[in-house]
């Protein structure tokens, strides 16, 4: 128990430092975890207790992903999202998969690694756009909607990996049944849930917490991953009072996610099949492939490669979702590799996004002042 307090205290200090220098906090949490955990000083062991608390971080994160799913607005912006999303997916998943295979991972491992390699950190992309004051750019819209597309892909990937782990048919039936049941229950109870969420006492937070936690119980009962149940629950509860649930679950999500990141670091084991060279190669490829997909999207949507640099720089950082995929489905080797990947790309991405203006100037200077007028986003 006191280990958790220690871990949280270290994270608090690190959060202060990272805010002070406008850096993403996730790499710091992971580095701290590695330093005090298995591969470092080994002062904080990962026991069942801390494991449970950190798994709550994952559940709250995925509940939030489900909550923010907006199939309607996705469909409205269909073509743009599809184009940028598909380019991003294809380029990065393919490069990641091919690289992992060539570096000696087995096909399934390669696919899991490629998924972590593909998926950018929405949190980092959004906070870098806000903090670096890029929201006026049409590219900012493309980037945020690319993140929405990636969220959908995250759900698909989680479903796919879960289905593959057991009997796919029973899995699909069970998931469909859970989905149908949750949607139905939420529809029937919509009014009372809304009324409770509007109260000013302690009931709204209690309801939110109970709903999210109970998804872990339901998952255990039905033997499907709690990650998936959390997403299903979030997306069906969005129909009640999504904004209120988002606000209410935010404090839980923030605290438990920090625990999730730091305990992910604590459990990292570099002594197994982990190879620093493999990790380094993947990091370099991960930076290159996001820049490449960014430039392709820039070309396709904004008619300018310079726009693509902005897109690449802001989507470069891998974070919470890569860790989530590694933590749920990855082996020790994959987790260790993804930890390094996240730390490297998120730090490089943070600087690339901050200095993207300079980066663009430099590139356009190199190309003898290529026309760099970013066109409006294709509607």
């Amino acid at each position, binding site marked *: 128990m006191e280990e958790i307090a220690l871990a949280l205290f270290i994270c608090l200090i690190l959060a202060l430092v990272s805010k002070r220098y406008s850096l993403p906090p996730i790499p710091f949490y992971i580095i701290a975890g590695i330093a005090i955990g298995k591969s470092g000083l080994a002062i904080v062991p990962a026991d069942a207790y801390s494991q449970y608390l950190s798994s709550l971080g994952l559940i709250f994160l995925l509940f939030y992903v489900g909550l*923010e799913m*907006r199939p309607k*607005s996705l469909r409205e912006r269909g073509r743009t999202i599809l184009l940028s999303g598909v380019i991003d997916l294809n380029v990065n998943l393919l490069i990641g998969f091919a690289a992992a295979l060539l570096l000696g991972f087995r096909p399934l491992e390669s696919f899991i690694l490629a998924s972590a390699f593909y998926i950018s950190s*929405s949190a980092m992309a*959004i906070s870098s*756009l*806000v903090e670096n*004051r890029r*929201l*006026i*750019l049409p590219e*900012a*819209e493309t980037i*945020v*909607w690319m*993140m*929405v597309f990636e969220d959908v892909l995250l759900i698909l990937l989680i479903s796919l990996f879960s289905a593959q782990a057991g009997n796919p048919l029973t899995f699909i039936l069970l998931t469909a049944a859970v989905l149908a049941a949750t949607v139905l229950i939420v529809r029937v109870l919509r009014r009372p849930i809304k009324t409770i969420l509007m109260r000013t006492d302690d009931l709204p937070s209690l309801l939110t917490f109970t709903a999210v936690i109970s998804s872990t119980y339901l998952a255990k009962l039905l033997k499907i991953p709690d990650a998936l149940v959390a997403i299903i629950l979030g997306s069906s509860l969005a129909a009640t009072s999504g*904004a209120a649930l988002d606000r209410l679950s935010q404090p839980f999500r923030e605290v438990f996610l920090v625990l999730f990141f730091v305990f992910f670091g604590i459990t990292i084991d570099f002594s197994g099949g982990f190879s620093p060279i493999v990790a380094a190669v993947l990091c370099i490829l991960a930076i290159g492939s996001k820049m490449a997909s960014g430039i392709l999207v820039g070309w396709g949507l904004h008619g300018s490669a310079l726009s693509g640099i902005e897109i690449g720089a802001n989507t470069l950082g891998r974070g919470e979702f890569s860790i989530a995929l590694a933590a749920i489905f990855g082996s020790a080797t994959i987790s260790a590799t993804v930890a390094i990947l996240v730390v490297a790309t998120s730090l490089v991405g943070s600087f690339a996004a901050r200095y993207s*203006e300079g980066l*663009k100037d430099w590139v356009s200077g190199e190309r003898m002042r290529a026309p*760099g007028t970013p066109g409006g986003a294709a509607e």
Partner: protein
Amino acid sequence: MGVRCIELPGIGTKYELETEKGDKVAIIFMGSRKFQLYVLEKGKGAPSAAELTAAEARRLGSLLSGAIIEAEKEAVEIAFSALSDLRIRVHTYVIKKHLAGRSIAELQVRTKTGATVVAVSRKGKNIINPLPSFTFEDGDIVVAIGDTDQLEEFEHQILGN
């Protein structure tokens, strides 16, 4: 001069306006009661931006709609889109010592100036539509409503500025 409205999931809503001269202004409403204001000068690549709190955004809004703001004296002009000729000014003034103890009726505010005192803020408490018998105290902030001439009269005759 249409305003483009774009949803930015995870951030908020973006309103974008291209001015007649070709400059671009964007306002982003972020869920957490924060605002970002961007200005992109025509032909320039990099925008300027400012982050505003809700209160700052409101002040800026009343400035842009044609008001003058001084320390504790501030004016807002109200114009309705359907009644473009109708312009009503709302002005705040600070009551000085020499008016302390005198009532609105006694000062004959409406008869003498045409302006009306619609609200008084006294030590953080607000009195909306004070009665004629309402007596001023030193330091009261009054809100008067009228057209420009009436408010000028109010300043001269009642406040004695």
